[in-house]
């Protein structure tokens, strides 16, 4: 990952803008990347003290300094380095320095310490030449590490990684972010919320704009409400790959930038469904082809039934702050009453997830939700009382569209 000091950005009207590499700038970046890769591949087996000056000798202008350092940082991270001394340097140092201390203590007044005599004596005793001993003395320092493997990949890939790494490095200085995220499936959304939980971040689901797909989330950490701290910057930066795995997202970060910790905002967007990251929030319709097989099968069977419910992909997060959330897969709307019932398929993976949903309903989740749970999890439907707005549907094998319809009717009364 890049560090924040290597980011190439401009501050304008309270915003931080990354310098995007396009046209000539991108071509120059690729040219530089090619030169660095060629040097590293030619220098395999050399020590860092040789490799680094070789990289630094590639001519760059003052305006290219950060680009050059950034590319070199990513390449250094991708190299394998190893200390491979011929003798144990720490042991050798102890022997040489102890002998030198003895020699110095034994000096008569006015006599001078003879460094070469000490080195020659120890080298002789160890069967080394003086040059070998001099080389081995600090062979375990970082500067003496040897490159075992040079990075793979092309210059273009390195430049793409550099651009991604720039956005991540900016987020290292974020105190909170607001994300509009559009997930293609409930599974994608659940993966994102799992990542939020894993990173120990807190979020608030903001009210959704009418007719817009996706969710708005305000994300920071527990302590953030007391102090604009960049403490959660690393966790927020690590969230970026999870957002890129969603169909589309746009993010606005509140930053404390530079040594003076200037309050700035930063925007970025992307996602797998967006070829070129657009400036505005995407709102593509939900795509049924991306549904897991068991949900897709239930959907097609349900549509084949005669029923008063219209069914579609759910696009909401049902959040009960302080307790938890669920991300339903489908939403059913009654043609006459307009009442909505959600369905979340929990399958057979986690009994723990089922108990969390039960707790959520008991704590006051207001929406009607049918949680479909495989019988393999050995959970009874009775754990949720009839008077609660949600219910469990325990199925054996595959979900039955008819049973789902019966449960929906019961819940929507």
């Amino acid at each position, binding site marked *: 990952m890049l560090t924040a000091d290597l980011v190439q950005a401009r501050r304008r009207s309270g915003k931080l803008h990354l310098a995007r590499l396009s046209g000539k700038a991108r071509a120059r970046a690729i040219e530089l990347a090619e030169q660095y890769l060629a040097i590293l591949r030619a220098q395999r087996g050399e020590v860092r003290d040789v490799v680094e000056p070789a990289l630094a000798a590639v001519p760059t202008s003052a305006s290219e300094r950060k680009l050059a350092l950034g590319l070199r940082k990513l390449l250094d991270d991708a190299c394998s380095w190893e200390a491979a001394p011929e003798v144990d340097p720490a042991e050798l140092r102890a022997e040489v320095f102890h002998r030198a201390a003895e020699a110095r203590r034994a000096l008569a007044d006015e*006599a001078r310490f003879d460094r070469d005599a000490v080195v020659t004596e120890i080298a002789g005793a160890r069967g080394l030449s003086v040059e070998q001993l001099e080389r081995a003395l600090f062979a375990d320092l970082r500067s003496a590490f040897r490159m075992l493997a040079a990075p793979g990949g092309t210059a273009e890939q390195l430049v793409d990684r550099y651009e991604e790494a720039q956005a991540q490095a900016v987020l290292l200085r974020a105190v909170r972010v607001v994300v509009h995220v559009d997930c293609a499936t409930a599974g994608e959304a659940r993966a994102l919320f799992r990542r939020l939980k894993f990173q120990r971040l807190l979020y608030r689901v903001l009210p959704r704009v009418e007719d817009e797909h996706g969710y708005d989330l305000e994300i920071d950490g527990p302590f953030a409400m007391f102090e604009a701290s960049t403490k959660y910057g690393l966790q927020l930066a690590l969230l970026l790959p999870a957002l890129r795995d969603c169909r589309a997202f746009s993010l606005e970060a509140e930053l404390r930038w530079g040594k003076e910790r200037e309050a700035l905002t930063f925007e970025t967007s992307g996602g797998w469904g967006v070829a070129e990251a657009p400036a505005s929030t995407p709102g593509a319709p939900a795509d049924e082809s991306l549904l897991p097989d068991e949900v897709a099968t239930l959907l097609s069977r349900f549509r084949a039934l005669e029923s008063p419910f219209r069914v579609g992909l759910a696009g909401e997060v049902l959040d009960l702050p302080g307790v938890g959330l669920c991300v339903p897969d489908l939403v059913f709307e009654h043609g006459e009453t307009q009442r909505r019932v959600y369905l979340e398929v929990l399958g057979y993976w986690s009994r723990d997830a089922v108990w969390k949903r039960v707790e959520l309903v008991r704590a006051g989740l207001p929406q009607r939700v049918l949680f479909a749970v495989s019988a393999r999890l050995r959970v009874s439907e009775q754990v949720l009382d009839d008077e609660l707005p949600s219910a469990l549907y325990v199925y054996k094998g595959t979900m039955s569209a008819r049973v789902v319809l019966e449960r929906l009717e019961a819940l929507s009364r």
Partner: protein
Amino acid sequence: MLVLAFVGGTLEIRDAGAHAALLPSACQWDPRTRCHRAPALAYADVVRALHAAKAPYDDRARGYEELPQGMRLRREPRPYQSEAIAAWRAARGRGVVVLPTGAGKTHVALMAIDDKRRNALVVTPTLDLVRQWYDALRTTFGLPVGLVGGGEHDVRALTVTTYDSAHLHMEHLGARFGLLVFDEAHHLPGASYALAARLSLAPFRLGLTATPERADGRESELEELIGPIVLRRDVTELAGEFLADYDVETIGVELTADERAEYDHERALYRGFVARNGIRFDRPQGWGEFVMLSARSDDGRRAMRAYQRQRELAFGAKSKLEALGELLELHRLDRAIVFTQDNATAYRISRRFLVPVITHQTKVRERSEILEGLSQGSYGAIVTSKVLNEGVDVPEANVAIVVSGSGSVREHVQRLGRVLRKKGDKRAVLYELVTEATSEQYTSQRRREHVAYR
């Protein structure tokens, strides 16, 4: 019933109901989780407020316990150490003790731990100090001691860590200690390290330092993070009786003719750029302007290189190494610590004079062996850049040689402190090598603006 819980360095207060009005102002409503929340630092205030109102509560936050035993090894405290503990107790176990290096700050902390007998975390700036505290706690309390940092993560009732690890891990460790000891506490104020204090609920806190003052003036935050200064003694008050007597000697050296020519050329280049761009170093933002402008043009980059080179020449003059060689021979029967401004010079000295070197790259085991060698006399001198500036305890060391350093008063006082620990009737000496007619003379003047050098 009101429930207290520790979550990620904060105190969550659920089901406060009518008792919400009792909560101190640090507690705020958190709409994300529908509960009240406060920085963990406010734990003692919250509990005190609930106690005072006799409000029932379920404390699920406190994760620390009482120590099974107190000190096994007791030493008669010096009078000012007893005064420090009495003053700290009077401040409800929260406060900073300011004592010169070598005056026995560690013993004050051991007495505080013995007094409160709660799980305690000691936070230090360097791995060398971690090692030293580890030994002191284990010997004094006869309990296993945990380590967090430097590749270790072993949390025990008595644990030692670094500031770097503490601010990163306190959101997980913050409930597990009832007493925090901040060694070299002047490091604590600041955006990141201060979190080590804010994310912990420890009701008892002790700060130790010889020099609380900071260049950025943020020492005022110590009162909120730890507590007020409860006792302060200066080096001149304790020298002789409790600290070794000492001399300070500045040795001027000359640049060689070649060095002088290069120094003058590089300095003219750098000063020329500064003058052309109207940069004034007497203004607070002067240095920042220079850094910013130097990055924008080839001319500027050359000026920055010229600045660095003229500094290298002044700080690393050949005559300094010759003078150092003479001092090492003069003090060949003493124990000397040589200080440099940068690692490259430290390694150059180590290679040239064949003396052991300690930098941030030196592994813990080798550091221990080197310090033990100096202590026992198998080494007569060692060289280091900045990692030994603070706290490391080698009572036998009696000579400090500053080959180069910054203009920081604190750094210079700390370096002097390395040789001040009382041992028999030893007399310590601090040499400072300064290149004449260079900018280093000004640096030297700035760092000697302290009572210890008058």
